[in-house]
Every structure is written in C-alpha cells, then in structure tokens.
C-alpha cells in the first residue's frame, strides 16, 4: 500500500521538479515570485493538445512543439509585460503576474471552454509488479525529469551561458560590468524556463487532465518545492520537489486525500517560520 504511495509520490515529484527549477531560475534573476507559472504550464498542455489531437501529430512531436511554443509565449510575457515593469517592487510584479495568469487562463477558455480533455494516445495497461502499478507514461515522466535535472545541472555548471546565468542571478550589475550582455542572458533564461513549463504542461496532460486550470493546481506545490529547497537554488528546487511530491502522497496515510492539496501550504508556512532561506538556499545578507 505505502509502496504504491511512494511510486505516486515520485511521479508527483517528477511533475513538480522541472517547473520548480524554472521558477527558481526566474526568481534568481528577476527577484519576484511569478504567479503566472501555472498559466504557462496550462499553455504548454494546450499547445500539446492542439498539436496532438487537433493536428494529429505524434505525442513526442507535440511535446517538443509545446516546449518551443511555450518558450516563445513565456519569453513574450517578459517582453510585453514584465520588462516594461522592471524596477517596480516585488509586490507590484507579483500582482501583475496574477493578472497575467488570469488573462492567459481566460484566453484559453475562450478557445477551448472549460471541458476536460486528454491526449490522443493508445490505451496501455499499467505495468504491475509486486502488487504495485505504474503506467508507461509515468515512467516516461520520471525518466525525462531525471534527464532534465542532469541537463540543467550541466548547463549551469559547465557551459558559458550557464555560468553567465548564475553570475547574472548573483549580481547583475557586476555581470554587466564584466562585459556580459545581461539582457541576452535574461532572455535566454526566460526561454529555457518557458520550455520547462511547456514540458510540465505535457506531463500534466499525460498524468492528470487537460483543462484551463491544470497549471493553477500545480502552482502551490511548485512554490512549496522551490521555497523548501531554497528559492533561487535550482538544486534545492529538485530536492524540494522530491520532498513535496512524496509528502503530498504520503499524507493520504493519515488524512483523507482531499487534504492533499493543503500540504504545499503547510510546508510553505512552516518553512517561512523556521528556515526562510530553505534547505539549500543562502540566507540573504543585509547590510
């Protein structure tokens, strides 16, 4: 019984980890919590739906298309909305991002209504072993998330642009002074994060359902994972996602499953009280 919960937890964690990494990367550079991340995920799910069901493309093509399309939408949200607002307080930007999330959600509703949809995939039996069940799609999600985690690590640690991303997040003025074109680095970060949100939309469509609020339901667990790991720390986000993913599923052992959605809130509240910089984050030094 609890073995199945752990499997569910790991799937859940794999769903949360890529957007939590992306949220963390964006926060590192822009210094405000972007509440539109859920809407970005929804965009990814619907682009994949349009390509897969609407245009009849194979799932993997639709997935790549969703990543590319969402990357463009997310980057545009910076160009059109956040860039003109740079320099405003984090609270202002947070409110702006909530407004953006509502706008995106309702634009999607305009075209697709509120129906619950799914991808056009052949039905497969879940794989069973030792009384545990896991679907092929869930295995795909776990494997791809691990690959993404490693790829992001390699990007940040070993590539020139990755180091510039870290440097810009750390001290944008100094990065600029050393000759780094920070607006290019920031645009690149939005693109990468957009692709991760798009991929999450695809995962959500595979494991959950496709509807205009699908991303919104993931927003709180994503925030919880990023805060738990230490906001602005992509590695923390991976660890945070694993813990939040497992915690959400394992509460079913002690509480009715309808309380699952509250777990993220509890984690955020407790963390902000006892360790506001998260597990792997660096405490902010104020002079």
């Amino acid at each position, binding site marked *: 019984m609890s073995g199945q919960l752990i499997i569910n937890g790991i799937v859940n964690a794999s769903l949360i980890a890529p957007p939590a990494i992306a949220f963390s990367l964006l926060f590192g550079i822009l210094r405000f919590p972007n509440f539109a991340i859920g809407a970005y995920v929804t965009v990814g799910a619907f682009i994949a739906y349009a390509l897969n069901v609407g245009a009849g493309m194979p799932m993997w093509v639709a997935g790549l298309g969703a990543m590319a399309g969402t990357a463009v939408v997310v980057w545009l949200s910076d160009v059109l909305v956040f860039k003109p607002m740079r320099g405003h307080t984090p609270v202002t930007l947070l409110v702006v991002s909530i407004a953006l999330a509502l706008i995106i959600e309702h634009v999607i509703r305009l075209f697709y209504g509120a129906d619950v949809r799914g991808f056009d995939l052949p039905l497969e039996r879940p794989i069973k072993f030792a009384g545990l069940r896991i679907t092929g799609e869930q295995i795909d999600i776990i494997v791809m998330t691990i690959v993404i985690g490693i790829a992001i690590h390699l990007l940040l640690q070993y590539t020139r642009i990755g180091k510039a991303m*870290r*440097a810009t997040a750390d001290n944008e*003025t100094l*990065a*600029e*002074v*050393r*000759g780094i074109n920070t607006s290019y680095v920031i645009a690149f970060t939005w693109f990468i994060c957009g692709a991760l949100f798009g991929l999450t939309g695809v995962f959500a469509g595979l494991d959950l359902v496709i509807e205009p609020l699908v991303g919104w339901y993931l927003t709180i667990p994503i925030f919880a994972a990023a805060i738990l790991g230490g906001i602005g720390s992509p590695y923390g986000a991976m660890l945070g996602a694993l813990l939040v993913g497992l915690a959400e599923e394992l509460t079913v052992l002690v509480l009715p499953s309808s309380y699952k959605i509250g777990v993220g809130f509890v984690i955020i509240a407790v963390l902000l009280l006892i360790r506001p910089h998260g597990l792997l984050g660096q405490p902010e030094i104020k002079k």
Partner: protein
Amino acid sequence: MAEDLLEAENVCVGYGRGDIVHGVDVSVSAGRIATIIGPNGAGKSTMIKTIAGVLTRREGSIRIDGREIGGKPASEIARCGVAYVPQEANVFRQLTVTENLQMGSWIEPKEFDDRYEKVCALFPILKERAKVRAGNLSGGQRQMVAFGMALMVEPKVLLLDEPSAGLSPAMVEQMFDIIKQVNKTGIAVLMVEQNAMQALKISDHGYVMAAGQVAMSAPASELLDSSEVSELYLGTRQ
C-alpha cells in the same frame, strides 16, 4: 604629451532628479595613476560609476582612446578596454573563486589560462582557494578576487572604487604595491580613495572633488604638499 587614454569632459550625472556631479573633467593617460579624493558625498564614486557605464551621464563626453563611450551600456564599455572594480558587491558570491575569474575573462575567454597564471602570481591565495565560493571568503580575500577579476582582461583603463576599503594596514600597502605594478605595464588607473595620503603617494595626478565638482586638479605631489589639502582631506583622515 601623449593623447589622454581616458578623457571625461563636462560630465553631469545624477539619480532621479537633480545632478550629483556637475560638469566634471577628469583625464588619465596611459601608464599614469590619477586619484580622486574628497569628502563623502562629493560624487567621487558616482563619477567613476558613470565612466564604467553603471550610471548614464546626462551631459558631457567620455572618451577612451578618442572613442566616445558615454551613453553606452556597461557591457559594451567593458569591451572598449575599461575594467571597473566596484567598492561593494564586487564579487559573485555564489560562484567559486575560479568561476569569478572566468567571468573576469568573459570577453576574452581564450586568454583565460594565460591570464589566470598572471593574476594568481599577483594573488597566490586565489589559487589556494580556487574552489571556495567567493561569498565565503574574508573581506580582504574578496577584494583580491574583485581586483583579480578586473585583471583577467588586459584593460586599457582600470577604474578602482576604494581599493583599500576593508583591508588591514599591511594589506593596504600590498594592494597599493600591486596597483603600481599593474600600472607599470601601461594601464591607466583612475581610483577613488578615502585613504588619500597613501593613494596620492603612488599617484601622478590628483583631483579633489567637493559638492559634485572638481575643486582642485594638480600633480599628486603638489596636493600632498598643499597645506589646504592636507588640512582638509589628509590630516583628519589618518
């Protein structure tokens, strides 16, 4: 006399409304050191930030080798051969010492190995602590990372904002020695210093700034001898 490498003419700059620096002229030629001294709030750091492109001048002209750089973004000015070391937040705290130096050679990545050896010869501690995050270093070591980063390019002009701030007296001396050594390779150095006496001693030229303007501009030795300057800016600081 050779053409000045760095020439700033009639520079006006400020934050928001109102200027902090009103029509300042500063120039340094290759292989020379110039120091700006003056009381707090005189606009010294503002002036140096403006040359580096961190702030944008409202009026006036800033030229490197005769080429106008005023109004360009800092990243482009860096590519024109200007290396600026800010006073605060002058290292990437989350990056290791070596990564900081890699960021230093961002515009000339192929030169990294060569320059790395040169910079580590000046500051051997940077090699010892290569894998430590800059944020975990002591203040003095951070200052060396900051300075070393600027030397990872071979700049034409080095802009230093309080290079001796937060250093122990022995290290201040060492820092000034290194500045002199670097300067001898032909780099023009413009610095802002609270440690006016010691800074002027290694400088060729000195500017006294007060209330956003250049109150005096004279060879450093003259400023050191001037009773007015020593009373106002040198005596009280020590």
